[in-house]
């Protein structure tokens, strides 16, 4: 089935391995065979297996992305892409056999592929488990989460319900093993009754005047919601479909927002500053490859909340798109440039992970040691967006005793970017705004750094002393 020679780990994702492929209308090789007769190009042979037609040749189109469809056949392309996914999973110890992985699913291309690949990996592990004699290695569990942003997005509930039904179908179609599908509204980040929580969330979001700030805050809340689902349902990893293109955009966005210091934290394979570590296995896969895979394998995607960005984020994504058109490797250049920034100590899997103790699972881990310095200063985090704060800017104001007003304390505790684009300028509305914030979920169990909760309490003490009306 798969290309015959030298193919990148062909056995792992041959179509017969992947239950989902059976649902496809046309198997990938049929695509190749069907169109072969219409093809006149002589050089349209996959440069990897040197047997099959390239995707571009098979489809009778030019190599419009200057990329893989002109070089690979469908099988080699697929295995190459999956290879990138698997390498990042194994190299960074993202998933261990005893893990329970929560895949964040928006319905879009990236998370669809992330879900598909995670599923393929799981079903392979399942196969190995059933075949092995001692059954020593358990199979990791997979759950899927969709964050329902109806409360803050202009989407009709009909459309949303339909989309959720489609997603349910996608997820159920991936079984076995059965994957639980969680649909949780954003306002769940408040531990309140649904209606109250919704009002509170809306009030908070409406208090942010800056478009970009609003968007960034929502993105943060999405993460909070994912963390909450993971925590409440016993997941041990949160898996995001963040791709190279998205990271390239984030690099420039962060740069323009003055978040140069914390940028390195956001773009690594592993982000364990959250209570449940977050992993980004598609970090090395550009969006056009993911789109291609969805097209090739007819992976169904669901567009719910339109992905268009506003403000700075929108500006950057159209800018990067333009750059990408001019130079197809621009996105990965941007990501690799930012990848050279020094990561934080929480950008690797926590060592004290219980499961690492198991010899059997340790045997399987090929950890590439992330270069982080041993003697790291304790990190403190922005109470709004949870990005690490530069010690110099933070230490001066928080540790000194001249916290005269509450807004001073809050201002000092937040990163400069949040201060500008999220926090209201006017002190009284600022206090109200802070009182509306959801409780933090982000207590990563690291070192003796300043506890974020403590910080919050300090702030809230100040708040109460200034303003009797607490909530």
């Amino acid at each position, binding site marked *: 089935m798969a290309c015959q020679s030298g193919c990148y780990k062909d056995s792992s994702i041959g179509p017969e391995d992947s239950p989902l492929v059976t649902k496809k209308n046309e198997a990938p090789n049929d695509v190749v065979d069907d169109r072969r007769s219409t093809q006149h190009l002589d050089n349209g042979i996959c440069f990897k297996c040197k047997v099959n037609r390239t995707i571009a040749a098979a489809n009778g189109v030019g190599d419009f992305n200057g990329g893989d469809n002109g070089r690979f056949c469908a099988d080699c392309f697929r295995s190459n892409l999956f290879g990138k996914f698997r390498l990042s999973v194994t190299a960074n110890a993202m998933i261990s056999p005893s893990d329970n992985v929560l895949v964040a699913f928006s319905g879009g291309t990236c998370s669809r592929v992330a879900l598909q690949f995670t599923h393929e990996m799981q079903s392979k592990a399942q196969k190995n488990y059933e075949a092995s004699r001692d059954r020593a290695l358990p199979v990791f569990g997979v759950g899927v989460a969709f964050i329902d942003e109806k409360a803050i997005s202009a989407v009709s509930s009909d459309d949303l319900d339909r989309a959720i039904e489609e997603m349910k179908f996608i997820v159920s179609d991936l079984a076995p093993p059965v994957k639980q599908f969680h649909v949780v509204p954003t306002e769940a980040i408040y531990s309140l009754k649904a209606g109250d929580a919704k009002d509170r969330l809306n009030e908070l979001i409406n208090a942010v005047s800056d478009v970009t700030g609003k968007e960034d805050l929502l993105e943060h809340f999405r993460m909070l919601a994912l963390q909450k689902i993971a925590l409440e349902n016993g997941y041990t990893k949160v898996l995001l479909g963040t791709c190279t293109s998205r990271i390239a955009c984030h*690099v420039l966005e962060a*740069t*323009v927002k*003055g978040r*140069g210091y914390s940028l390195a934290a956001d773009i690594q394979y592993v982000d364990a500053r959250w209570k449940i570590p977050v992993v980004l296995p598609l970090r090395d896969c550009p969006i056009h490859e993911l789109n291609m895979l969805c097209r090739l394998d007819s992976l169904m995607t669901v567009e719910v909340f339109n992905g268009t960005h506003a403000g700075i984020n929108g500006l950057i994504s159209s800018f990067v798109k333009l750059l990408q058109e001019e130079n197809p490797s621009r996105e990965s250049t*941007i990501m690799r*440039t*930012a990848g*050279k920034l020094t990561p934080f100590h929480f950008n690797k899997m926590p060592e004290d992970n219980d499961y690492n103790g198991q010899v059997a699972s340790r045997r399987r881990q090929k950890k590439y040691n992330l270069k982080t310095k041993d003697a790291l200063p304790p990190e403190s985090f922005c109470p709004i967006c949870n990005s690490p704060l*530069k010690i110099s800017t933070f230490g001066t104001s928080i540790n000194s005793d001249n916290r005269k007003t509450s807004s001073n304390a809050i201002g000092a505790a937040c990163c400069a970017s949040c201060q500008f684009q999220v926090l209201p300028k006017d002190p009284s509305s600022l206090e109200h705004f802070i009182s509306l914030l959801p409780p933090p979920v982000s207590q990563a169990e690291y070192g003796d750094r300043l506890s974020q909760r403590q910080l919050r309490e300090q702030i809230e003490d100040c708040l109460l002393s200034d303003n009797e009306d607490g909530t």
Partner: protein
Amino acid sequence: MEKGKGRVCSLCNEKRAALKRPKTLEQICRECFYTVFEDEIHRVIVDNQLFKPGERIAIGASGGKDSTVLAYVMSELNRRHNYGLDLFLLSVDEGITGYRDDSLETVKRNEIQYGLPLKVVSYSELYGWTMDEIVKLIGLKNNCTFCGVFRRQALDRGAALLKVDKLVTGHNADDIAETVLLNILRGDIARLSRCTSIITGEDGPIPRCKPFKYTYEKEISFCGCFVLDKQLSNHDDRPRAILDIIKSGEDFRISTSTKMPEQGICERCGYISSQKWCKACVLLEGLNRGLPKLGIGRSRGVRGEINSEHNANMKPANGTKNLQSKQCGSLDF
């Protein structure tokens, strides 16, 4: 508040606001603008300890708005705050008919206006070739390479002739933000780590500094000619963006062990160079030997040729070979 008229300066609350400040979008009057504009640059100079009393400082003057305003601000602040600096204007004459004549006139006006001694170094004086002659030889393509390489050296050479301690240039916040983004897009982590420093080349003979590092180009334009009809829309949404980019550039966690291209000295002229010969000497050699294409483009072979041809005992340039492609001086102040 009425629309259009009657807006009062948000700083002094007295005069009528004359402009919306690009950096903060505050509506302020002309006088307050000059005050905050100059005070900010003063703060930058003091906070970063750019100068020491008694130093001789050359101001790179092209005749354009940035350097003209720089000359004005430097002489004004030096007088007002007693920096105790000896200021000089330094201009480069590339020898392009009809191009430099006007701007050199501007610089000469500045010389009189601010009472600063002016030194003009010309390509013909330094290299024996004017740009006009070079263009005649090599045509309209690629002549920017010559002009750029020669100008970079010319400023340093002129500064050496003036025996100054430092060279200040009119690079503004927009320039620096642009460089940060360009270096990210190009993947040049080494330059990314140093492109935001306010002083560069401190280990070299004549450090360069950029007092306008945090000054918006638009404000320089305002200060220069006070033209209000310029498009303001670009930054209206987020006036801080430029400063934020610079802040990001400063805050990037780049490990100090990031390898920088090794700097050596040109064997022919003694100018800093990562190669046996500096770029200007290679280009000049090409011109003088009638091979003007030498050293242009990415043809490492040709350049390697000249370096080995003239230095038979030259070390094998394995390590430095890769660096040859990084000649883009324009991105690195």
